[in-house]
């Protein structure tokens, strides 16, 4: 009995440590997020002015200079929140994909979400085609991106419902669908005018500058909702990482869980992509960093990844705001995140994957 209670105590301690790690990361992310409102190299607003604008707005007053208020409250504040939720959402998508497809290089876009979205946006830029014409330029792009993003996933889900599909075949089917959409997009680019190609290219890189109060709530709500839904599946998904046969014998309905989780991730990713474009790499590395920190139990891994993702993206967005010329945040995540990720991998590699 004595032995058991020691074991139990140790387990509790470790669990608490993992929870604390996630909370700390989240707190740091929130801090940086707040700090990022004050970072605005290219508008030249000083710290005090920004602070005064915020205080004035929150206490219901009007700040004297109209466009200061606009910049601080309507542009930078939603952008700071957007970065946190986009980072968290993509990271959760990455965790689920990596666990469900049992492949360390799966990311939220593995089932072709990015290629579908890119195709939809290309249709808009190059052919002027809007799936649901609303007359609003940016809303048309968002709808095109989000709705076309769901097509590849729908195909994959239909395929993976069939008998005898393994994670490998699901992944390969996703890659095949991705190639079709990518080729279709490229065919349009061949004859498109260079301006449209440039627009599409910029959209593909992904940026947070279009965050506004009216779209940030949608992304935040989707991220929170989907993350909670995924958390409910966390226990079964953890069992499934040991292999489908083992999970089945423990009573997990593997196919159902896989399908549901793929759909949740696809809807979440499609929403995010619609508003910020395809910010890459984030969704791949955040889960790995979190895995190094808290291990592979999805009960801890999902929240920790979400926090890590939020931290990475808001930090990268801060860096882009420091820069003189405007650089899309996707570039920063790749250029800075890439080498840092490699260093992390090298130091923490052995124990994490296999």
């Amino acid at each position, binding site marked *: 009995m004595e032995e058991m209670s020691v074991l139990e105590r140790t387990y509790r301690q470790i669990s608490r440590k993992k929870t604390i790690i996630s909370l700390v990361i989240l707190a740091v992310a929130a801090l940086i997020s707040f700090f990022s409102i004050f970072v605005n190299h290219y508008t030249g607003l000083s710290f005090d002015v920004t602070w005064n604008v915020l205080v004035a707005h929150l206490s219901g007053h009007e700040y004297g200079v109209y466009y200061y208020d606009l910049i601080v409250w309507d542009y930078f504040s939603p952008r700071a929140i957007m970065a946190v939720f986009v980072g968290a959402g993509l990271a959760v998508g990455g965790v689920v994909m990596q666990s469900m497809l049992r*492949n*360390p*290089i799966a990311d939220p876009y593995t089932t072709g979400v990015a290629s579908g979205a890119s195709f939809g946006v290309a249709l808009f830029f190059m052919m002027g085609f809007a799936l649901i014409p609303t007359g609003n330029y940016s809303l048309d792009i968002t709808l095109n991106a989000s709705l076309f993003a769901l097509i590849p996933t729908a195909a994959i889900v239909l*395929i993976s419902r*069939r*008998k*005898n599909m*393994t*994670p*490998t*075949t699901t*992944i*390969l*089917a996703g*890659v*095949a*669908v991705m*190639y*079709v959409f*990518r*080729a*279709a997009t*490229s*065919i349009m*680019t*061949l004859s498109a005018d*260079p*301006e449209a*190609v*440039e627009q599409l*290219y*910029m959209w593909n*890189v992904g940026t947070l500058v279009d965050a506004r109060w009216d779209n940030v709530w949608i992304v935040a709500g989707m991220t929170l909702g989907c993350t909670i839904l995924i958390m409910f599946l966390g226990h079964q998904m953890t069992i499934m990482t040991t292999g489908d046969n083992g999970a089945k014998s423990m009573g997990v309905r593997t196919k159902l869980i896989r399908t549901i989780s793929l759909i949740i991730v696809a809807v979440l990713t499609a929403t995010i992509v619609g508003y910020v474009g395809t910010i*890459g*790499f984030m969704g*791949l*590395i955040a889960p*790995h960093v979190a895995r190094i920190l808290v291990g592979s139990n999805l009960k801890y891994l999902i929240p920790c990844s979400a926090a890590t993702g939020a931290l990475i993206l808001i930090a990268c967005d801060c860096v882009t705001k420091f820069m003189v*010329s405007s*650089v*899309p945040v*996707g*570039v*920063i*995540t*790749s*250029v800075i*995140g*890439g*080498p840092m*990720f*490699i260093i992390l*991998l*090298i130091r923490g*590699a*052995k124990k994490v*994957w*296999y």
Partner: protein
Amino acid sequence: MGDDPYGLEKLEEQYNRYTSRKILLIIALVAIIIILIGVSLMFNGRGLGFVEAMSYFFNHIIGTTYIVGSDEWVNDYAIWTVYTPRVFMAIIVGAGLASCGVVMQALLNNPLADPYTTGLSDGACFGAVAAIVMGFTLSGISGSLGIVTNAFFGGLIPAIVIIMLSRVINMSPAVTILVGVALSYLFSGMETLIMVSTDADTLKNAFLWQIGTFTNTDWSEIPIPLILVALSSAIMLLMSRKLNLLSLGDDSASSLGLDVDNFRTILMIIVAISVAGMISFSGIIGFVGLVAPHVVRMAIGGDNRYLIPASMAAGAAFLLVADLLSRVVVYPDELRVGLIASIIGAPVFLYMILKKKRYGEGY
């Protein structure tokens, strides 16, 4: 029963039957390639049919010459100088990418691995884009040769980094592949940095470089890819038995006497040089290197001794068809072969995935 108490003869017979099926597939694919060469040369803008085109082709090989300026001379010129190089290039690149794909999938033990997994394609794109947008070349040569050398060395950088890292620390296949992905993002990020600062026309040019094509291939471009692919494939074939051991996992392979780390390093160097050599001339051609190995593996199983040659033949045949279609579909214009490869290849691949039961459980 008396002669063969353990059923060994029967087993051997069965084994031979399996083997001969695999060899037959390879022979059939090679025959298809030869026919496809002829079909491909039929679209020569001179109105020559299959037989005529093939006879010009073989006559040139045996050294027949024609009077300069005569009809035959023009035909010979069209067949041999204009169209044959691109056909050869399609075969070389198709075969090379397919064999590299097989080897990468085996080395990294991951079905998503392809010849570009170590970040090669993004490194090469970065090099090429640096040449196209900024006019910066490593070799100091400007123009298209500068782009080629930039793409070649750019492609090698991430591969060299990975290989050096894997010497310093003990990287598992999963970590290797993740480092590769990180490097490819790093390079595509830097490429984007260059791209966003340029004007729309240059951006489109740079964008188009990335979609591979065999248009305007001439004989001077053939030797380097040919030599690289021939050498690398020969080495891969010689090592295919050892490659089979890797499918048991690193531990079992080393307990069977394979020096896993060195083996992996050597093969990755070979793949890197070979792929960089190919794509610096043709641009990035996706899909073949990933899919040809899978399709062939579905047909004949995972034994690398047969998988490598059969994938090479399948890859070559596939790119020949894609190149042919890219010339025919919107004749006299051309589409890019990389696009056609995806568009016709992906549905076929999807169909095969759906047909094949329980594929890929080994991963």
